[in-house]
């Protein structure tokens, strides 16, 4: 019975997608193959271990997000201005999954940094061609396959060997439609040997219409490169997001990722990092603040496939209202990946009796000379700390705010860029007032 309805759902989505397929540019056979992969895997249900706590099937049942409609109103440069995170950043604007050059501001980019539409890049750029669809594997997840089949646009960011980009590249994703719909932006970031780059991806929505953004970002970090990758999710209550980021990191590189989930009705982040050469380092930071009926699910995979790499992960959550927060961190240490250091921490504060936290920090280790640990804790606000503040005349509400703020601050403090940090502090103050 269940299998029947599940198949029907997949078929319904497929028939909609197939009809649209003919109108899409690019490699038609690659799109077709990806759609076949999607058919093979089907829409994940809560019976899939990786989607146990967040039911994509239910999401599609609510509304299929299949309509193709016009934007509520044209997104203006004023809107984009409002979404500024770091003043002075180069801006790439993607509205409903389509790269809009007119709204983007790329004139300040230094030499050695290339930013262009991915649709053009996969045709004209040798590097984009080389890496496109090689880092995110269609057969590993139905949403990646769906994106490969359906994506229309997105951005390709490339930084040349030894180059340093002194301003962040801000990719502004905006969802704004008049009927429920799905977008499939596809991005590719390639940092060449010894380069240094900061990329901010922000996700916003305009209007009350249900949208699903199924974004896939592939990241290639070459030897000795340094890449700070921020994802700031501040969408409205009608926005749904399926965010997949796949990273391959080479020797001596340092990839740091910062994920801030402050908005959206349904947010799922898949972050997969694999180390393919020795002496690679990666730091993963995440903060989710949820309330209402929101669902935020963070899945991370760090794959230590070779020896002498280091990964460190810190995810924290403040969970209020009737919201649900999910964390699943996987660390794989493959056979012979000796001298691996891998740490993982997940901490949550529950502020409401109706809120739920599901966490699963997972270690799979096949080598013996390693240092791996994980820890997770979930609880209410520290009563002793509360008492301390109350005894000194701080009102209950402010004391609570102060403690929650301090809890969240630990993640924000790890952000190296002062402008982004200031933005986040501001946003947190706003969220918690």
């Amino acid at each position: 019975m269940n299998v029947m309805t599940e198949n029907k759902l997949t078929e319904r989505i497929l028939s909609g997608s197939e009809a649209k397929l003919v109108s899409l540019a690019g490699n038609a056979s690659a799109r077709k193959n990806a759609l076949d992969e999607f058919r093979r895997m089907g829409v994940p249900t809560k019976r899939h271990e990786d989607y146990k706590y967040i039911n994509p099937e239910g999401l599609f049942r609510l509304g299929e997000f299949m309509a193709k409609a016009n934007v509520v109103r044209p997104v203006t440069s004023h809107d984009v201005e409002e979404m500024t995170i770091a003043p002075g950043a180069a801006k790439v604007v993607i509205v409903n999954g389509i790269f809009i050059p007119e709204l983007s501001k790329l004139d300040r980019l230094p030499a050695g940094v290339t930013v262009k539409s991915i649709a053009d890049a996969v045709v004209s750029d040798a590097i984009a061609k080389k890496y496109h669809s090689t880092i995110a594997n269609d057969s590993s997840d139905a949403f990646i396959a769906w994106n490969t089949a359906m994506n229309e646009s997105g951005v390709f960011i490339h930084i040349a060997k030894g180059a340093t980009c002194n301003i962040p590249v801000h990719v502004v994703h905006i969802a704004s439609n008049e009927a429920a719909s799905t977008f499939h932006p596809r991005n590719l970031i390639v940092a060449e040997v010894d380069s240094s780059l900061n990329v901010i991806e922000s996700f916003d929505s305009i209007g009350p219409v249900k949208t699903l953004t199924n974004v896939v970002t592939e990241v290639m970090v070459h030897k000795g490169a340094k890449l700070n990758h921020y994802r700031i999710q501040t969408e409205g209550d009608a926005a749904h997001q399926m965010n997949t980021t796949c990273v391959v990191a080479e020797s001596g590189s340092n990839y740091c990722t910062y994920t801030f989930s402050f908005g959206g009705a349904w947010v799922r982040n898949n972050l997969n990092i694999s180390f393919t050469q020795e002496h690679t380092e990666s730091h993963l930071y995440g903060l989710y603040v949820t309330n209402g009926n929101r669902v935020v699910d963070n899945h991370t995979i760090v794959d230590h496939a070779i020896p002498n790499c280091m990964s460190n992960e810190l995810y924290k959550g403040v969970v209020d209202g009737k919201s649900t927060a999910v964390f699943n961190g996987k660390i794989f240490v493959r056979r012979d990946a000796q001298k691996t250091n891998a740490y993982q921490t997940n901490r949550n504060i529950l502020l409401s009796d109706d809120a739920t936290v599901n966490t699963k920090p997972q270690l799979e280790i096949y080598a013996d000379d390693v240092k791996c640990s994980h820890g997770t804790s979930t609880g209410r606000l520290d009563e002793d700390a509360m008492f301390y503040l109350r005894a000194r005349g701080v009102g209950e509400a402010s004391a609570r705010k102060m403690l929650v703020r301090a809890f969240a601050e630990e993640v924000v403090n790890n952000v190296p860029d002062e402008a982004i940090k200031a933005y986040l502090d501001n946003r947190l103050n706003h969220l918690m007032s």
Partner: protein
Amino acid sequence: MADKNEILEEHISSEYKYGFVTDIDTEFAPKGLNEDIVRFISKKKNEPEWMLEYRLKAFRHWLTMEEPKHWAHLDYPAVNFQDISYYAAPKKKPTVNSMDEVDPELVKTFEKLGISLEEQKRLVGMESKIAVDAVIDSVSVKTTFKEVLAEKGIIFCSFSEAVHEHPELIRQYMGSVVPYTDNYYAALNSAVFSDGSFCYIPKGVRCPMELSTYFRINSSGTGQFERTLIVADEGAYVSYLEGCTAPQRDENQLHAAVVEIVAQKDGEVKYSTVQNWYPGDKNGKGGIYNFVTKRGICAGSNSKISWTQVETGSAITWKYPSVILKGDNSIGEFYSVAVTNNMQQADTGTKMLHIGRNTKSTIISKGISAGKSNNSYRGLVRISKGAKNARNFSQCDSLLMGDKCGAHTFPYIEIHDKSGVVEHEATTSKIGEDQIFYCNQRGIDTEKAIGLIVNGYCKEVLNQLPMEFAVEAQKLLAVSLEGSVG
């Protein structure tokens, strides 16, 4: 150097010491599983109609289920359920009254196991007393100390005896914690279980001795399906021990048991297991598939259930002793040492389900992997909505010996109430060279140093075991890890 090699050589060549076969006349059911077999087992045991009905219901449900294969971190060929004999019993009717009537071969078996009934008998009146119920090929053959226990009103007998003599208790409690619909192997067990132990501690009684069950698979081509049911009524206390061994065979044998524990108001049950089923040889040939469902319910307030397990045997271990914390202020504990060597695979852990108010649970799990084995901890802590002030602490440590083994942790934590506090921490490490160097310097050779360090690493769990078991467990740890370093 020569000395060290000699010791290593000796250790590497040491084999499973419980791998003997006892020559007891055994009665088999024909291989295969169908309703007739279920009826055959029930008839053999002269069971009342309601028991047969229960078995048949379970069997029919089992037919609708699928063998679980994909979720656990285990890899093994599918079990052929039609190639197993579901009933094997020693032919000579065992008696419960006199030691002289026990089959001498059986007595020898127990002597080999080191739990001679004769010796146990001589211990009557002495300080260290253990009442033993021995189960061979899933039929209970001998229960000792029955009279002493009966004086206190404690019922400790084989499951089939209890079906006849205490049907009201069995009907009330059987399947109340692990219903036959629970999982594939619980359904199978409910349909074909041949025997097991039943224990009931009446109100306010503190059981004066450790109760113990020894399980042994003896015949080839059989599965062992026993059921244990322990009920501690209001204010009662019992400490229960379980030991398991099996002969060495080239084939894989199936062991699918069900253990149910009920602790009423103020009741306390402490359940300790030393599991040493035959793990298979160095190449992973043979060994027991140990697929066990163990669950307890703290039904009344202030009740407590504590699971302690030392898992060293079995080719594959799949078990999650769990506690449902339903009563207010109830406590659940899980202490585990799981050792895997050679080609063994273990996927074990616990579930702590917090439902009542002010409930507490502690999970201490120590995994040791050596050889080419894989050892996983899989646990669930769930704080239900309304489970006010629930508290959990979990610690899962893994020790890796050698670079071909694996240690994995899969902790599921689900929190639906803001007053709950849950902490989980896990570490993975190997034995430090500095620790070994320290021991070597003081004249302790490497092999012994490892034994010392491992015992220290497991101390938190071993301390929970009753004294007799703790000694056995320490020896077992040393034996299981022999030859894993060098």
